[in-house]
C-alpha cells in the first residue's frame, strides 16, 4: 500500500523508557522493525504494550531513550510529521456513534488531508467489506463491525506503519478470522504492522517476529527462534507395545542426545536435529522389530514460550 523508503528501519527504539511518576510503564526497550514486517508485541496486562504504542505514535512523550518512527526521530517537534506517516488503531474503536460510517471516515480523511477522499474511503471500506454499510450510523453496528470501521479508518492515510492495538479484542471467532485475513493481506502488500495482542495463536499465525514485553523486553525473534532458544528439540515415539530394550534402540543414534520413557510404549527423545534423528530412529525401531504407531517432532507453541518467559523473570539473550 505504501511506498517503502529504502533507508533505515521502519521503527527503531533504543533504551526507550516511560515512567508515570514512580510507576514504570516500560523500561529500556530496544528493537528494530524493518519495512514490510509484521511485528507482534506480546505481554500480560499492564506490561506497557499500549503505552509503547502511544509513545511511538507521539501521543505521549518518552521519559528517556530515543526512537525513530517511519524514518523520523521521535521528538515533540516531529509529532505532526510522524503522524502523517503512521496510523494507529486503538483497542477501543472510538467511533462517533451518531455519525454514519462514511461520515466518520470523511472526517478522518480530511484530518489526514488525503487526496481524492471519496476514492480512498471507498477503497478502505472495500478492504474491510463494509461498502454496503457506509450509510449506517456507527451506533447501530455490532462490536465486530465497529472494529472493522476502525480498521478502515486506520487504512485511510495509506500508512507506512500501522499500529494495531489488540485489534481482535472481544471479537467472536468469525469476526476475528476476518480481521486476521485483513492483517495478513496488509502484511503481504508491504505495510509495516506493529501488532499488540494477548492472543498468542494470532501472533504466531500473523507475525514475522514477536517481542515479549513485561515492563522490560523479555525477548525478540521469530516464533521458531524463540522456541529454539528456550526449548530443546524433541521427538516423541509411540509403539504398540513397550520396547524390550529401549536403551539398545535409542542409545547412540545419530542426532539423539538423550531419551526417557514417557508412558506405556511412549518415549521422548531429546535431539539436536530432527531431520537427522527421525529417520535414524525409525530405522532403529524397524530393526528392533517394533510395531511403530508414530514418530513425531514435538513442537512447543508460542504460548509455551510466552508462559516460560513471563513466569521466569530473567530476560533471554537475544541474537
Amino acid at each position, binding site marked *: 500500500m505504501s511506498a517503502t523508503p529504502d533507508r533505515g528501519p521502519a521503527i527503531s527504539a533504543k533504551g526507550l523508557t*516511560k*515512567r*508515570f*511518576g514512580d510507576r514504570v510503564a516500560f523500561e529500556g526497550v530496544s528493537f528494530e522493525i524493518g519495512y514490510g514486517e509484521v511485528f507482534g508485541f506480546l505481554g500480560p496486562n499492564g506490561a506497557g504494550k499500549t*503505552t509503547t504504542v*502511544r509513545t511511538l*505514535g507521539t*501521543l*505521549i*512523550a518518552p*521519559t528517556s531513550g530515543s526512537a525513530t518512527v517511519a524514518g523520523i526521530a521521535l521528538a515533540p517537534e516531529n509529532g*505532526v510529521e510522524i*503522524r*502523517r506517516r*503512521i*496510523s*494507529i488503531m*486503538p483497542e*477501543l*474503536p*472510538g*467511533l*462517533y*456513534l*451518531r*455519525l454514519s460510517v462514511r*461520515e466518520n471516515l*470523511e*472526517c*478522518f480523511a*480530511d*484530518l*489526514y*488531508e488525503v487526496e481524492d477522499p471519496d476514492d480512498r474511503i471507498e477503497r478502505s471500506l472495500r478492504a474491510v467489506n463494509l461498502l454496503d454499510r457506509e450509510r449506517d450510523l456507527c451506533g447501530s453496528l455490532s462490536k465486530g463491525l465497529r472494529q472493522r470501521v*476502525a480498521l478502515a*479508518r486506520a487504512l485511510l*492515510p495509506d500508512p507506512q506503519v500501522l499500529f494495531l492495538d489488540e485489534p481482535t479484542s472481544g471479537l467472536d471467532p468469525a469476526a476475528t478470522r476476518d480481521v486476521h485475513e485483513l492483517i495478513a493481506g496488509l502484511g503481504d502488500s508491504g505495510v509495516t504492522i506493529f501488532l499488540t495482542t494477548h492472543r498468542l495463536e494470532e501472533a504466531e499465525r500473523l507475525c514475522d517476529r514477536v517481542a515479549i514485553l513485561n515492563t522490560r523486553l523479555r525477548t525478540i525473534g521469530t516464533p521458531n527462534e524463540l522456541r529454539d532458544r528456550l526449548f530443546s528439540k524433541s521427538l516423541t515415539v509411540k509403539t504398540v507395545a513397550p520396547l524390550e530394550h529401549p536403551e539398545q534402540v535409542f542409545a547412540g543414534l545419530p542426532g539423539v542426545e538423550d531419551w526417557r520413557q514417557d508412558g506405556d510404549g511412549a518415549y521422548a527423545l531429546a535431539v539436536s536435529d530432527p531431520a537427522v534423528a527421525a529417520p535414524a530412529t525409525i530405522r532403529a525401531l524397524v530393526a528392533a522389530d517394533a510395531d511403530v504407531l508414530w514418530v513425531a517432532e514435538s513442537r512447543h507453541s508460542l504460548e509455551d514460550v510466552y508462559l516460560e518467559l513471563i513466569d521466569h523473570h530473567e530476560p533471554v539473550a537475544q541474537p
Partner: protein
Amino acid sequence: MTRLSRRRVIAIFRKELRDYRRNRYMLVTMAVIPIIFLVQPVASILSLPAAAAVPLSRKHELIYMLGIPALVPALVAAASIVTERQQGTLEPILTTPLRREEFVLAKALAPLIPSVAISYLVYALFVVIIELFAHAGIASALFSGHLVIAQIVFTPLIAAWSIWVGLAISTLSNDVRAAQQLSLLGNLPVVAVVVLISVNVIHATAGLALGLGVALLVGYRVGWRVVSALFDRERLITGTRD
C-alpha cells in the same frame, strides 16, 4: 503560531455540527435557556400598560438578552472535550496529524455558529412579538438603534468568550455535568455585567461598549492560546503526566 490547516479545522467543525444535530441532549441544552429568556420578558412586557413606555425608555432591559450567548455556548463548549474523553473518541483523533490549535479552534467555532444563530433568532422573535402584540409606544420605548447594534455586535463577542471559558474547563474536567456547572459559574461575571447594564446600575455609553468590545476581542485571542496550552495530549489520554 504554526500554520493551521483549514481542511482539518473544517473537518472537526463539520463533525461537531453533525453530532449536535443528532444529539437530543445537546439540542435540549441549546433550546431551554433561549426559551426561558424569551418567555419571561414577553409575558411581562405584554402585560405592561401604555403608560409604562416613558420609564421603560430610560432603561436597557433588552440588553439582558445577551445572557443567551453567555450561557448557551458555555454549556455546549463545556461538554465538548470531556465528552470525547469519556466516549474514547479523543484518542483516535489525536493520532492524526491534527494540531492542538486546530482542534481547539474547531471546537470553539462549532458551538459559536448555532449559539449566535439562536441568539439572533430569539431576539428577532422577541422584536416581532412585541411589535405585534405590545401596547402602542412600548415597542418604540424598548427598541432603539444603538441597542439593536449592541445586541448584534456583542452576541458573537460574548459567545466566543464563554466558549473559551467552557473549553478551558472541559479540557481540565473528567465529568460532563461538573464541567457544565463550572462553566456556568465561570461565565456569571459576564451575565452580571449584562444584568447591571440592563437595569442601569452600570450606565451604557459608547465608550463602555467600545471598551468591553476590545476587552472581549483581546480575551478571544488570549483564550485560544490559553486553551491550546491547556490541551495536553498526554494528560488527556492517560489522565496523568510524566
